[in-house]
């Protein structure tokens, strides 16, 4: 985007001032997005104050998430904070910072009484410099012989691990751990240093690899690969020795923006589920030219320029599909012509028509097509990304379906398609689970089920014919990442919408009388994977259900009832009398509003609030049973003996 000229800049600042005073939050965000283009640090500070000024309104009206953020650090971060606040603001987060002391990072992490350990921070940024993580490394690497280098790296990572685990044992805040930037001021220069097996460059790369592994072994902990960010920016310009040596500022002023953007991009997937579906246009997007005018042999795609630009875009889509992003076509074309084009030009295309789980090819409005897709795939509109080269089509989607993310490709520069898409954050995810990878097959199976339902005489007959098998497993072994993913992204059938962390799931599993059960579902068409979860705690003679949720793909097949029956069965075996359920209304969870009453629960008016309704069921009178058409596998009472203290 072009830089702002001074008069534009002043005009935006004035409008921003007005928007702040009138608390027009949407304008504040839009104007801030404009103003940061100036790249001036005073404008960034102004935008940071703007977000702070309307923080309350942004949270209340625009769904911004406020995050109590603690920074554990050994370097100066204060001048970077406004940049972080602005990047976070543009991504829908309000970072409320608390900063630890320079020299006290070890104490913050290890001491139970430290400010960090008593802060109840939701997000903890661990920003240490290499001097603190592995101060001896430069000396050990100096002679290039490598004596003691491996050991120093292992010990350094061990020390960091001890700090992180000590924090994790007491707190549930999400951890972001920054790695080290590979130093460029080395004795041997860029080529010689890199060739030296035990030189500092390779030692720090190894250190970062081990830190990455370490973070993967700790729940809700993500590694921030600052070296990759610095390398893309240019390591030489990344650090300003003048400011590092005089003020312990680890990053040059010019790189503040790049650093903040990368750090916020690392934070986002900790709190937000990635989008799931990419809807692509065909003409001048998937291929060059207009199929209806040029015919299948006239469209541009293949190994030669400019066809290879489109081929690159197609390859990028196959990469996304491999990670579990569903591909769909939304195009104004004739269906038969598109089929013909995919057939005749298959040698010049990187993907087949079958790679798309859904195709909306016709002459209806694209907004309608996307809404139909959402229904067919049982996904919310906020799971969709729409990619098109036409500004008119893009504007229409932005207007009619604001939840859908729109990527407008520069139609006249097809070589920029991949970059335009890669710059977006919405497919970022921290973990790729088996369920992500199998998602496409599952949606194909869904289509077959729908066909069967159309032919079945009754719903029950249909459900019987599916031969559904539910397997109950410990939510900690689901694996845990999948359980947390479900908690993070399930909206429609989610009774309380509590976004529990992995540490919290573990706590439910380990507490006496606690339950953390996941359900895996398969039927004759395929394996849907782990799709449901329940968390419960024992309180006296009551089994209190904290969370109960089911992926919307499998709602309405009795699996929700089986899940409830499982918790009830376990509560009965523990000798508990009451099963307590709660419904907290959200914008999206109306489908499960009457779940508890439908299963014989009565309302507890005394305990219900405005947003939350509490239900109870006397297990001596009634125990929910699983529907007859379901087969249940797995021992739902596993490890029950060890887990129970018995009812009082």
């Amino acid at each position, binding site marked *: 985007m072009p830089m702002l000229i001074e008069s534009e800049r002043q005009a935006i600042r004035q409008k921003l001032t007005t928007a702040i005073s009138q608390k027009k939050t949407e304008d504040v965000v839009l104007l801030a997005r404009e103003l940061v283009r100036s790249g001036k640090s005073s404008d960034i*500070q102004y935008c940071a104050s703007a977000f702070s000024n309307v923080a309350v309104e942004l949270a209340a009206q625009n769904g911004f998430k406020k995050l109590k953020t603690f920074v554990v650090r050994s370097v100066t971060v204060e001048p970077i904070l406004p940049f972080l606040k602005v990047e976070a603001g543009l991504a829908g987060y309000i970072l409320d910072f608390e900063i630890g002391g320079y020299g006290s990072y070890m104490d913050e992490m290890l001491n139970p009484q430290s400010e960090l350990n008593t802060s109840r921070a939701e997000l903890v940024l661990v920003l240490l410099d290499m001097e603190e993580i592995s101060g001896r490394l430069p000396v050990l690497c100096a002679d290039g012989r490598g004596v003691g280098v491996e050991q120093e790296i292992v010990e350094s990572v061990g020390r960091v691990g001890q700090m992180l685990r000590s924090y994790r044992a007491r707190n549930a805040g999400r951890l972001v751990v920054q790695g080290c930037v590979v130093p460029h001021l080395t004795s041997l220069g860029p080529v010689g240093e890199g060739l030296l097996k035990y030189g500092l460059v390779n030692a720090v790369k190894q250190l970062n690899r081990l830190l990455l592994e370490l973070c993967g072994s700790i729940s809700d902990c993500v590694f921030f690969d600052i070296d990759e960010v610095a390398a893309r920016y240019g390591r030489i310009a990344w650090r300003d020795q*003048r400011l590092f040596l005089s003020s312990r500022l680890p990053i040059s002023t*010019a790189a503040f923006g790049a650093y903040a953007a990368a750090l916020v991009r690392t934070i986002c997937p900790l709190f937000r589920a990635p989008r799931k579906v990419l809807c692509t246009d065909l003409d001048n997007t998937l291929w060059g030219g207009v199929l209806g005018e040029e015919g299948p042999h006239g469209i541009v795609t293949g190994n030669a320029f400019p066809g290879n630009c489109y081929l690159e875009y197609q390859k990028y889509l196959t990469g996304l599909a491999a990670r579990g992003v569903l591909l769909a076509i939304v195009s104004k074309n004739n269906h038969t012509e598109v089929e013909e084009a995919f057939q005749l030009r298959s040698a010049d295309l990187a993907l087949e028509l079958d790679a798309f789980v859904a195709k909306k090819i016709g002459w209806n409005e694209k907004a309608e097509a996307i809404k139909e897709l959402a229904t067919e795939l049982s996904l919310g509109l906020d799971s969709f990304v729409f990619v098109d080269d036409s500004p008119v089509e893009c504007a229409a989607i932005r207007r009619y379906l604001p939840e859908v993310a729109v990527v407008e490709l520069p139609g006249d520069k097809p070589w920029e398609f991949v970059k335009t898409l890669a710059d977006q954050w919405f497919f970022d995810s921290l973990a790729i689970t088996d369920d992500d990878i199998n998602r496409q097959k599952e949606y194909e199976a869904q289509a077959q089920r729908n066909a069967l339902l159309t032919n079945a005489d009754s719903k029950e007959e249909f459900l019987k014919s599916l031969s559904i098998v539910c397997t109950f497993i410990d939510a900690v072994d689901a694996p845990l990442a999948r359980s947390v993913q479900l908690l993070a992204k399930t909206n429609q059938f989610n009774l309380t919408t509590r976004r529990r962390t992995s540490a919290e799931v573990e706590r439910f599993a380990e507490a006496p009388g606690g339950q953390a059960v996941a359900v895996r579902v398969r039927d004759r068409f395929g394996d849907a994977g782990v799709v449901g979860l329940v968390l419960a705690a024992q309180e006296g003679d009551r089994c209190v259900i904290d969370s109960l949720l089911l992926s919307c793909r499998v709602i309405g097949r009795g699996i929700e009832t089986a899940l409830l029956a499982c918790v009830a069965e376990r509560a009965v075996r523990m000798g508990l009398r009451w099963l307590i359920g709660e419904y907290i209304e959200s914008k999206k969870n109306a489908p499960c509003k009457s779940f508890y009453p439908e299963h014989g629960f009565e309302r507890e008016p005394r305990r219900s609030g405005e947003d939350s309704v509490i239900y109870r069921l006397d297990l001596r009178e009634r125990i929910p049973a699983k529907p007859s058409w379901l087969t249940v596998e797995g021992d739902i009472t596993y490890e029950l003996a060890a887990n129970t203290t018995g009812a009082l």
Partner: protein
Amino acid sequence: MSSQQIPPALCDIIADTLEISREEITSDLSAESTETWDSFRHLQLILSIEDEYGVQFDPQRIPELTTVARIEEALQQKGAKLR
């Protein structure tokens, strides 16, 4: 002295960084007399000024630049175009 004598860009930076109004900014304004002008804001302020005028101050001088007058003087010494 009135705020008109302070270059507008410098005035913007000081106001944004210290979160004070432009009217308060005179050559006499100093860290001592301004509550929000603490050591971290000071670093932030100096970095923003360096960024705006494309200059780099000697780190040993940075702690001394605690009044608007001294900042202006240092900028002039570096040959920055203030107006």
